[in-house]
Protein backbone atom coordinates (compact mmCIF):
# COMPACT_ATOMS: atom_id res chain seq x y z
CA UNK A 1 0.00 0.00 0.00
CA UNK A 2 1.55 3.27 -1.08
CA UNK A 3 0.52 6.62 0.25
CA UNK A 4 1.29 9.74 -1.67
CA UNK A 5 2.96 12.67 0.08
CA UNK A 6 0.13 14.98 -0.97
CA UNK A 7 -2.32 13.00 1.15
CA UNK A 8 -4.43 12.08 -1.87
CA UNK A 9 -6.51 8.91 -1.69
CA UNK A 10 -5.22 5.92 -3.54
CA UNK A 11 -7.12 5.76 -6.87
CA UNK A 12 -9.77 3.03 -6.66
CA UNK A 13 -8.93 1.84 -10.17
CA UNK A 14 -5.24 1.13 -9.65
CA UNK A 15 -3.34 -1.95 -8.52
CA UNK A 16 -5.72 -4.64 -7.26
CA UNK A 17 -8.50 -2.15 -8.02
CA UNK A 18 -7.69 -2.69 -11.69
CA UNK A 19 -8.90 -6.27 -11.34
CA UNK A 20 -11.89 -5.30 -9.22
CA UNK A 21 -13.04 -2.82 -11.86
CA UNK A 22 -12.53 -5.42 -14.60
CA UNK A 23 -14.71 -7.97 -12.78
CA UNK A 24 -17.31 -5.30 -12.05
CA UNK A 25 -17.24 -4.35 -15.73
CA UNK A 26 -17.77 -7.90 -16.93
CA UNK A 27 -20.65 -8.39 -14.51
CA UNK A 28 -22.10 -5.02 -15.54
CA UNK A 29 -21.96 -6.08 -19.18
CA UNK A 30 -23.46 -9.51 -18.47
CA UNK A 31 -26.24 -8.25 -16.20
CA UNK A 32 -27.16 -5.27 -18.38
CA UNK A 33 -27.22 -7.34 -21.57
CA UNK A 34 -29.39 -9.94 -19.84
CA UNK A 35 -31.69 -7.24 -18.46
CA UNK A 36 -32.11 -5.57 -21.85
CA UNK A 37 -32.82 -8.95 -23.43
CA UNK A 38 -35.43 -9.80 -20.79
CA UNK A 39 -37.15 -6.41 -20.85
CA UNK A 40 -37.27 -6.19 -24.66
CA UNK A 41 -38.37 -9.76 -25.38
CA UNK A 42 -40.55 -10.95 -22.49
CA UNK A 43 -41.33 -8.11 -20.11
CA UNK A 44 -44.97 -9.13 -19.73
CA UNK A 45 -44.04 -12.55 -18.30
CA UNK A 46 -42.53 -11.15 -15.12
CA UNK A 47 -42.31 -7.34 -15.22
CA UNK A 48 -40.97 -6.86 -11.68
CA UNK A 49 -38.21 -9.46 -11.97
CA UNK A 50 -37.06 -8.29 -15.40
CA UNK A 51 -37.07 -4.59 -14.54
CA UNK A 52 -35.14 -5.45 -11.38
CA UNK A 53 -32.73 -7.44 -13.51
CA UNK A 54 -32.10 -4.44 -15.74
CA UNK A 55 -31.81 -2.15 -12.72
CA UNK A 56 -29.21 -4.48 -11.19
CA UNK A 57 -27.23 -4.29 -14.41
CA UNK A 58 -27.34 -0.49 -14.43
CA UNK A 59 -26.18 -0.34 -10.81
CA UNK A 60 -23.17 -2.49 -11.76
CA UNK A 61 -22.48 -0.09 -14.64
CA UNK A 62 -22.53 2.86 -12.23
CA UNK A 63 -20.27 1.03 -9.76
CA UNK A 64 -17.82 0.11 -12.54
CA UNK A 65 -17.68 3.68 -13.80
CA UNK A 66 -17.30 5.14 -10.31
CA UNK A 67 -14.56 2.71 -9.25
CA UNK A 68 -12.71 3.13 -12.55
CA UNK A 69 -12.70 6.92 -12.33
CA UNK A 70 -12.12 7.11 -8.56
CA UNK A 71 -15.50 8.69 -7.77
CA UNK A 72 -15.93 7.44 -4.21
CA UNK A 73 -19.11 9.36 -3.46
CA UNK A 74 -20.84 7.48 -6.29
CA UNK A 75 -19.06 4.16 -5.73
CA UNK A 76 -20.10 3.82 -2.07
CA UNK A 77 -23.89 3.98 -2.60
CA UNK A 78 -23.67 1.82 -5.74
CA UNK A 79 -21.76 -0.91 -3.92
CA UNK A 80 -24.11 -0.74 -0.93
CA UNK A 81 -27.17 -1.00 -3.19
CA UNK A 82 -25.64 -4.15 -4.68
CA UNK A 83 -25.11 -5.64 -1.24
CA UNK A 84 -28.69 -4.92 -0.20
CA UNK A 85 -29.95 -6.13 -3.58
CA UNK A 86 -28.15 -9.46 -3.58
CA UNK A 87 -29.06 -10.19 0.05
CA UNK A 88 -32.72 -9.19 -0.39
CA UNK A 89 -33.35 -10.85 -3.74
CA UNK A 90 -31.24 -13.85 -2.73
CA UNK A 91 -33.35 -14.38 0.38
CA UNK A 92 -36.62 -13.82 -1.46
CA UNK A 93 -35.62 -16.33 -4.13
CA UNK A 94 -34.79 -18.87 -1.42
CA UNK A 95 -38.20 -18.61 0.21
CA UNK A 96 -39.69 -18.69 -3.29
CA UNK A 97 -41.77 -15.53 -3.32
CA UNK A 98 -43.47 -14.77 -6.61
CA UNK A 99 -41.40 -14.24 -9.75
CA UNK A 100 -37.91 -13.86 -8.36
CA UNK A 101 -36.24 -17.27 -8.83
CA UNK A 102 -33.54 -17.55 -11.47
CA UNK A 103 -34.45 -14.37 -13.30
CA UNK A 104 -31.94 -11.79 -12.07
CA UNK A 105 -28.21 -11.71 -11.34
CA UNK A 106 -29.11 -11.53 -7.67
CA UNK A 107 -31.36 -14.61 -7.58
CA UNK A 108 -30.05 -17.42 -5.37
CA UNK A 109 -27.39 -15.00 -4.10
CA UNK A 110 -25.90 -14.88 -7.59
CA UNK A 111 -25.56 -18.66 -7.93
CA UNK A 112 -26.01 -18.39 -11.70
CA UNK A 113 -22.92 -16.20 -11.85
CA UNK A 114 -20.66 -18.29 -9.62
CA UNK A 115 -21.75 -16.29 -6.54
CA UNK A 116 -19.63 -13.42 -7.84
CA UNK A 117 -22.57 -10.98 -7.26
CA UNK A 118 -22.52 -12.00 -3.59
CA UNK A 119 -18.76 -11.64 -3.13
CA UNK A 120 -18.25 -8.46 -5.17
CA UNK A 121 -20.05 -5.97 -2.89
CA UNK A 122 -17.95 -7.13 0.07
CA UNK A 123 -14.78 -6.79 -1.98
CA UNK A 124 -15.95 -3.38 -3.18
CA UNK A 125 -16.68 -2.18 0.34
CA UNK A 126 -13.37 -3.50 1.63
CA UNK A 127 -11.50 -1.88 -1.25
CA UNK A 128 -13.23 1.51 -0.85
CA UNK A 129 -12.61 1.34 2.89
CA UNK A 130 -8.95 0.34 2.64
CA UNK A 131 -8.06 2.85 -0.09
CA UNK A 132 -9.91 5.50 1.90
CA UNK A 133 -7.83 4.61 4.96
CA UNK A 134 -4.71 5.27 2.93
CA UNK A 135 -6.07 8.78 2.73
CA UNK A 136 -6.38 9.01 6.51
CA UNK A 137 -2.91 7.54 7.06
CA UNK A 138 -1.39 9.92 4.55
CA UNK A 139 -3.01 12.89 6.23
CA UNK A 140 -1.74 11.71 9.59
CA UNK A 141 1.78 11.39 8.19
CA UNK A 142 1.58 14.73 6.42
CA UNK A 143 0.12 16.50 9.43
CA UNK A 144 2.01 19.13 11.41
CA UNK A 145 4.80 17.74 13.61
CA UNK A 146 4.17 17.81 17.35
CA UNK A 147 5.39 20.96 19.04
CA UNK A 148 8.33 20.61 21.40
Amino acid at each position, binding site marked *: MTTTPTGATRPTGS*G*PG*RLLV*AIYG*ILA*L*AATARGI*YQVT*TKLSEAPLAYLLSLLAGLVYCVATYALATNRRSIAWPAVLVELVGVLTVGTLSLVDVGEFPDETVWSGFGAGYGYIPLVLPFLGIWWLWSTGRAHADAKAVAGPPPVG
Partner: protein
Amino acid sequence: MIVPVALLVGVLCLALAGWATWFVVVDRAVILRQLWGGAVIEAALVVQAVVAGVVLVVGDHDVDAALFWGYVITQLIVLPIAAAWAFAERTRWSSVVLLVAALTVGFLEYRLWQIWENS
Protein backbone atom coordinates in the same frame (compact mmCIF):
# COMPACT_ATOMS: atom_id res chain seq x y z
CA MET B 1 -21.75 -21.68 -36.12
CA ILE B 2 -18.90 -23.80 -37.36
CA VAL B 3 -17.09 -26.18 -35.06
CA PRO B 4 -13.50 -25.42 -36.19
CA VAL B 5 -13.91 -21.69 -35.57
CA ALA B 6 -15.51 -22.24 -32.15
CA LEU B 7 -12.71 -24.62 -31.20
CA LEU B 8 -10.12 -22.18 -32.53
CA VAL B 9 -11.59 -19.37 -30.42
CA GLY B 10 -11.57 -21.64 -27.36
CA VAL B 11 -7.95 -22.68 -27.88
CA LEU B 12 -6.82 -19.10 -28.57
CA CYS B 13 -8.55 -17.87 -25.40
CA LEU B 14 -6.88 -20.57 -23.32
CA ALA B 15 -3.54 -19.76 -24.92
CA LEU B 16 -3.86 -16.06 -24.13
CA ALA B 17 -5.04 -16.92 -20.60
CA GLY B 18 -2.00 -19.17 -20.15
CA TRP B 19 0.31 -16.45 -21.43
CA ALA B 20 -1.25 -13.92 -19.05
CA THR B 21 -1.01 -16.40 -16.15
CA TRP B 22 2.70 -16.78 -16.81
CA PHE B 23 3.06 -12.98 -16.70
CA VAL B 24 1.21 -12.92 -13.37
CA VAL B 25 3.63 -15.51 -12.01
CA VAL B 26 6.75 -13.64 -13.15
CA ASP B 27 5.27 -10.30 -12.01
CA ARG B 28 5.04 -8.54 -15.36
CA ALA B 29 2.53 -6.18 -16.90
CA VAL B 30 0.72 -6.83 -20.20
CA ILE B 31 2.89 -6.25 -23.28
CA LEU B 32 1.89 -5.11 -26.76
CA ARG B 33 2.43 -8.57 -28.22
CA GLN B 34 -0.30 -9.92 -25.94
CA LEU B 35 -2.68 -7.27 -27.24
CA TRP B 36 -1.94 -8.53 -30.76
CA GLY B 37 -2.86 -11.96 -29.45
CA GLY B 38 -6.15 -10.50 -28.29
CA ALA B 39 -6.62 -8.93 -31.73
CA VAL B 40 -6.25 -12.37 -33.34
CA ILE B 41 -9.04 -13.69 -31.09
CA GLU B 42 -11.14 -10.65 -31.95
CA ALA B 43 -10.62 -11.32 -35.67
CA ALA B 44 -11.74 -14.93 -35.19
CA LEU B 45 -14.85 -13.67 -33.36
CA VAL B 46 -15.70 -11.33 -36.23
CA VAL B 47 -15.30 -14.16 -38.76
CA GLN B 48 -17.51 -16.34 -36.58
CA ALA B 49 -20.20 -13.65 -36.34
CA VAL B 50 -20.20 -13.15 -40.11
CA VAL B 51 -20.41 -16.89 -40.76
CA ALA B 52 -23.21 -17.29 -38.20
CA GLY B 53 -25.08 -14.38 -39.79
CA VAL B 54 -24.79 -15.91 -43.25
CA VAL B 55 -25.90 -19.34 -42.01
CA LEU B 56 -28.91 -17.81 -40.24
CA VAL B 57 -29.96 -15.83 -43.31
CA VAL B 58 -29.30 -18.47 -45.96
CA GLY B 59 -29.66 -21.74 -44.06
CA ASP B 60 -32.56 -23.16 -42.10
CA HIS B 61 -30.92 -23.09 -38.68
CA ASP B 62 -33.22 -21.55 -36.09
CA VAL B 63 -31.94 -19.68 -33.07
CA ASP B 64 -33.22 -17.23 -30.44
CA ALA B 65 -31.88 -14.27 -32.42
CA ALA B 66 -31.98 -11.66 -29.63
CA LEU B 67 -30.21 -13.96 -27.19
CA PHE B 68 -27.64 -15.15 -29.72
CA TRP B 69 -26.70 -11.70 -31.04
CA GLY B 70 -26.71 -10.32 -27.51
CA TYR B 71 -24.00 -12.82 -26.64
CA VAL B 72 -22.13 -12.11 -29.89
CA ILE B 73 -22.05 -8.36 -29.20
CA THR B 74 -21.12 -8.85 -25.54
CA GLN B 75 -18.31 -11.21 -26.48
CA LEU B 76 -16.97 -8.75 -29.07
CA ILE B 77 -16.92 -5.91 -26.54
CA VAL B 78 -15.04 -7.65 -23.70
CA LEU B 79 -11.50 -7.98 -25.07
CA PRO B 80 -10.95 -4.49 -26.56
CA ILE B 81 -12.14 -2.73 -23.41
CA ALA B 82 -10.36 -5.12 -21.04
CA ALA B 83 -7.15 -4.93 -23.07
CA ALA B 84 -7.14 -1.13 -22.98
CA TRP B 85 -7.96 -1.17 -19.27
CA ALA B 86 -5.21 -3.74 -18.57
CA PHE B 87 -2.60 -2.01 -20.71
CA ALA B 88 -2.95 1.29 -18.84
CA GLU B 89 -1.88 -0.41 -15.60
CA ARG B 90 1.80 -1.16 -15.46
CA THR B 91 1.86 -3.74 -12.67
CA ARG B 92 1.18 -7.46 -12.35
CA TRP B 93 -2.52 -6.64 -11.94
CA SER B 94 -2.70 -5.72 -15.61
CA SER B 95 -1.89 -9.34 -16.46
CA VAL B 96 -4.58 -10.57 -14.06
CA VAL B 97 -7.12 -8.39 -15.90
CA LEU B 98 -6.08 -9.86 -19.26
CA LEU B 99 -6.30 -13.37 -17.79
CA VAL B 100 -9.86 -12.77 -16.55
CA ALA B 101 -10.86 -11.21 -19.88
CA ALA B 102 -9.50 -14.15 -21.91
CA LEU B 103 -11.31 -16.67 -19.70
CA THR B 104 -14.52 -14.62 -19.97
CA VAL B 105 -14.41 -14.63 -23.77
CA GLY B 106 -13.75 -18.36 -23.71
CA PHE B 107 -16.70 -18.93 -21.40
CA LEU B 108 -18.96 -16.77 -23.58
CA GLU B 109 -17.88 -18.88 -26.56
CA TYR B 110 -19.06 -21.97 -24.68
CA ARG B 111 -22.42 -20.31 -23.88
CA LEU B 112 -22.75 -19.15 -27.48
CA TRP B 113 -22.21 -22.71 -28.64
CA GLN B 114 -24.90 -23.94 -26.21
CA ILE B 115 -27.38 -21.34 -27.47
CA TRP B 116 -26.63 -22.28 -31.06
CA GLU B 117 -27.06 -26.01 -30.44
CA ASN B 118 -30.11 -25.88 -28.20
CA SER B 119 -32.32 -23.85 -30.48
